[in-house]
């Protein structure tokens, strides 16, 4: 479930994710560093929530709990990107980004890259599992969550 050290899906140099100054998403990013996927779930009404917010959108309880979930889901939508909108991607060629729906966490969605051949045919609804990718940046180490097609369905 962990990416190879030193090899990343996209080249280095893209913006580095950090939590907001108020710390709202800090547990999420800290979780990824430990190869754990944490999302919010309200302790009062059990509503799942992602991205994080300071309040449960269903019952208005403040400070929803962070809960670890298994990183697997289904492709909800996808795109194959050809145009480099950043200097780091200029010589890179096409890559795949997917929006993954997580049915066992209330259908919340998250975006990552789909590992494997960037020319592959992508099917909405396909089962995917998470792959943590750790970036050992000297000052700001961070981790991402990618996806690959599931070997078992």
């Amino acid at each position, binding site marked *: 479930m962990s990416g190879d050290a030193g090899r990343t899906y996209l080249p280095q140099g893209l913006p*580095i994710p950090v939590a907001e100054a108020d710390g709202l998403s800090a547990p999420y990013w800290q979780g990824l560093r430990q190869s754990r996927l944490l999302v919010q779930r309200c302790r009062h009404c059990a509503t799942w929530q992602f991205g994080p917010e300071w309040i449960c*959108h269903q019952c208005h309880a403040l400070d929803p709990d962070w809960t670890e979930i298994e990183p697997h889901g289904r492709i909800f939508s996808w795109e194959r990107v050809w145009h480099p909108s950043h200097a780091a991607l200029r010589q890179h060629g096409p890559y795949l980004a997917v929006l993954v729906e997580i049915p066992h966490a209330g259908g919340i969605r998250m975006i990552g890259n789909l590992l494997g051949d960037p020319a592959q045919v992508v099917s909405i609804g396909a089962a995917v599992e998470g792959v943590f990718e750790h970036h050992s940046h000297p000052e700001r180490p961070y981790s991402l969550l990618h996806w690959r097609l599931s070997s078992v369905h």
Partner: protein
Amino acid sequence: MSAGATADRTLRGRVAVVGIGETDYYRHGASPDPEFKLALKAILTACGDAGIDPRDIDGFASYSEERSEPSRLASALGTRRLRAATMQWGGGGGGCCAAVANAAASIVAGLADCVVVFRSLAQGQFGRFGQTTGIDTISGEKAYLMPYGVLAPPQRFAMRVRRYMHEHGVSQEALRAIALASYHHAQANPRAVMYGKPLDAAKYDASRWIAEPFHLYDCCMENDGAAALVLVPAERAGEFRNKPAYLLGAAIGSGYRAGAIPHNSPHYASAGFETVAADLYAMAGLGPPDVGVVQCYENFTGGVVMALAEHGFFAPEEANDYLAFDNLIAPSGRLPLNTSGGNLAECYMHGFELVLEAVRQVRGTSTSQAKRSDVAMVIGGPMVTPVSNLLLGSEATL
């Protein structure tokens, strides 16, 4: 009629556009003038079109973090006093109609009498929307997107359109027809950046992918320029030299949790107009069959498909049949669309060129005049939040 549009609480017929103006339109970075000077030029042209003294302007309205701010404009122009200064929050080009609505609300509420609504952009001076180099760290919504190469608007909207195409069986040819219509109309419009640069189906098909399902020609341009209009109370509409275009309705907003990031809005495959289209029709007392011509913001063609469907012109499942080139062109298509060339081929004036074109349609002065142009619709930037829209009409529609 909805609760928000009782007889007393409406913009219908209360204000009129009496002047429009724009600068020359340029490729991004090609303006010889700085952004603020572009804004001044467009405002002076709009005042000249109306035949009013710019010193009589008493309000300014804009959107999308416009940089030419009202107090500097009022000082530069020597307006006698400033009474309204409204900025629509968020939504980028989604606010192009909201800015008009906010100006109209200022007038109807008695806060101001002569409001200029405008947008100015000089991307050589301030940078492009489509490039994201130079950002070190990122927080908030973009932190969940940019490290994965979901950087600029094409990548941020492609998945939404792909999902819509999947749910409703919309074809690439439907997107193509929208691009072809905009380019077709631009060939009649000497203001258009793509004037003299026609597009056909083969050229579209052969164009490079930006982010599937968007070819190059599915994506708006980026441009430099400015555009402005002058809005006054309806009682004064007859004092000016041009035929007035009355505001028949306007609406702003989005549906339930449309802003849930990242890409977590419950109704994901949407342009965001479900509630906003209903509000617009309710205020105007009109429905889709009453609309003769539509200007619909093309950030990307796929957003136009969704936005037109959400305004009731066709069901999503009918998109492939309805969105055929012949249906979309003036003068006699079923629904002439983006008759100046729009964001794809006239100028990406962040959608404000669309509002000016709707005024021209009502006046009867478009370079691609629609056969039915008494009621003209503008739909602001789709797939963002908040979005906005408006309907303009001639005196006969009041």
